């Protein structure tokens, strides 16, 4: 309630960046939405003539599989990140501040390097003459494994790139849980596992949800990684949009893909937020 007087000046605080977003995000997005209902023309890119064909086309098997594959890969990456990232987040949250600082640095460091460069790193490791295959040959394998340009490679690449987005929110959530709650649970007769399932996991759920949503949205819109590490035939939506824009010159088609992808991500994210927010509200207000 103390903050009330400030609210009158909210425009002053939010205004400048709001204007920026309006001009450089909202308006272009509206433009994309418009484009998605214009007719595609091979010569003029788009004709200002309303049509639903761009969307109708997405029901074709090719596009439906494209979306399903993108969803599936993103979900797998999210789950892998959660399973691998949660223990790291717990360890860091319960570490001394020195270890935590070091851990955070190591965790965030990859974000300071461009995605393209990171992907090239993976090419060196996973390529047909890469580190893994050379190692396998040293161990006596006759033929190298095909690691690159597979779904597995995309999952490995995306997991590594999105891991910080999973670990950081979970770590923040666990840090807020007092260690004395863990001790209380143990004192009341819980084994470490029972303590974890009954206290830490439910109490860190908001962090796990935000982390998962971040990883999921980033994976859904991934472009560089699947383009360079994935197979030519098993594309993700991001690549398809790129192709439609630059190779096929079908901007309305790219626009409809963009709108569906955005609506899908926003819809799933809001659904998750609504579900967890509702639970949190129920807990507090009763």
């Amino acid at each position, binding site marked *: 309630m103390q903050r009330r007087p400030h609210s009158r000046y909210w425009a002053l605080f939010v205004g400048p960046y709001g204007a920026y977003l309006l001009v450089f995000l909202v308006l272009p997005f509206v433009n994309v939405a418009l484009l998605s209902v214009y007719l595609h023309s091979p010569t003029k890119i788009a004709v200002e003539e309303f049509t639903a064909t761009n969307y109708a086309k997405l029901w074709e098997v090719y596009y439906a599989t494209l979306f399903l594959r993108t969803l599936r890969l993103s979900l797998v990456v999210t789950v892998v990140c959660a399973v691998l990232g949660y223990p790291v987040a717990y360890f860091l949250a319960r570490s001394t501040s020195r270890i935590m600082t070091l851990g955070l640095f190591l965790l965030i460091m990859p974000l300071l390097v461009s995605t393209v460069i990171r992907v090239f790193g993976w090419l060196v490791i996973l390529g047909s003459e890469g580190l893994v295959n050379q190692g396998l040959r040293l161990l006596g394998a006759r033929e190298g494994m095909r690691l690159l340009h597979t779904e597995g490679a995309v999952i490995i690449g995306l997991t590594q790139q999105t891991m910080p987005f999973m670990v950081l929110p979970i770590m923040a959530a666990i840090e807020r849980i*007092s260690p*004395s*709650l863990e*001790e*209380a*649970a*143990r*004192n*009341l*007769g*819980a*084994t470490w596992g*029972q303590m974890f399932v*009954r*206290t830490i996991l*439910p*109490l860190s759920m908001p962090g796990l949800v935000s982390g998962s949503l971040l990883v999921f949205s980033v994976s859904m819109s991934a472009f560089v990684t699947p383009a360079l590490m994935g197979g030519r035939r098993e594309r993700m939506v991001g690549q398809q949009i790129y192709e439609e824009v630059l190779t096929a010159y079908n901007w309305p088609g790219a626009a409809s893909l963009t709108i569906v992808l955005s609506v899908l991500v926003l819809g799933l994210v809001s659904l998750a937020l609504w579900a967890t927010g509702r639970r949190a509200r129920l*807990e*507090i207000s*009763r």
Partner: protein
Amino acid sequence: MTGAKVGLEVRGLTKRFSPQVTVGPLSFEVMEGEFFSLLGPSGCGKTTTLRCIAGFEEPSEGSILLGGQRLDGRPPHRRDVGLVFQTYALFPHLTVFDNIAFGLRLRKFSKAEIERRVSRMLELVDLPNLSERYPAQLSGGQQQRVAIARSLVLEPSLLLFDEPLSNLDLKLRVQMRYELRDLQKRLGKTAVYVTHDQTEALALSDRIGVLSQGRIEQIGTPSEIYEWPASAFVADFIGSSNLLKARVRSAGTGADTAMETEHGLVLTVPRVADLSGGTVTLLLRPERFQMATAGNGDTSAANRFTARVRDVTYLGEDLHLRVLASERQPLLVSIKNSKGTRAIVPGDAIDLAIDPEDIHVLLR
């Protein structure tokens, strides 16, 4: 104390954090049904001791026995020891009912049995209507009661309290003190209570162990600790006190010895067997001084002297005077608030007396 049976036994407990920071070795016994306090300033090792008993710290040496069984080495969830935390440590995502039922559910009690035990416990701590609330919706005192109920419902052999009242305001603290004491006596539970608050320890405990720098200074009943402190540290820590450095003036032939403080006040004290060192510390409790008014003909009082009042603190029931005795010896004097004493103002000269029996000679 309900019986002479030993409930908890701590033998030579030592915890080394680093060569410089060591707790112990500590040894003490707590009888069954006894309320035992570990009292000391922060950093004295009282909480470490408690955490060793609960199994959250591994002792470097020594052993802990509960009902004759060794506890050390057993994981915290298999110790049959209930711990009440300073911060209550209630589970914020669970209702009061679910918080109290937490341990019962782990022990796979039937639903009906859990229902029965939790409601009985809610009655006991006087919170019958709040079972569906969340901890965030409770006051500090209510949260504390839930925390106690959550431990008690499991009927542990030993209850541990880690400064459980220190987050409450004064009035509630005093009220909870009575309730806690009452509850512990009614259930006959062995309890170890850690606190830095001497009033709390005196009010609650059957016996107190006073700790300083990782060692036990003295173990005794509240009155033993207060009346016969074993060291200057204990005397200073428990209650307010005048601690005066003094040396023997004349050994005396009778039952008494005359001593002179470093600021020149001569006092007669009960004869002390071992005065080889020469210098000792005298303990004079502020409330043991008597006003020796002119009308009071008791000239036989041995320790009678004139003192100049430097300032007066009005505390309602009592007045605290800071005085200079024999022109040089500062003393803190507590006297009852009455018609006569209310007139005292700084600069007044008053006559004070203290019974030699009320002067305690501390050899360390």
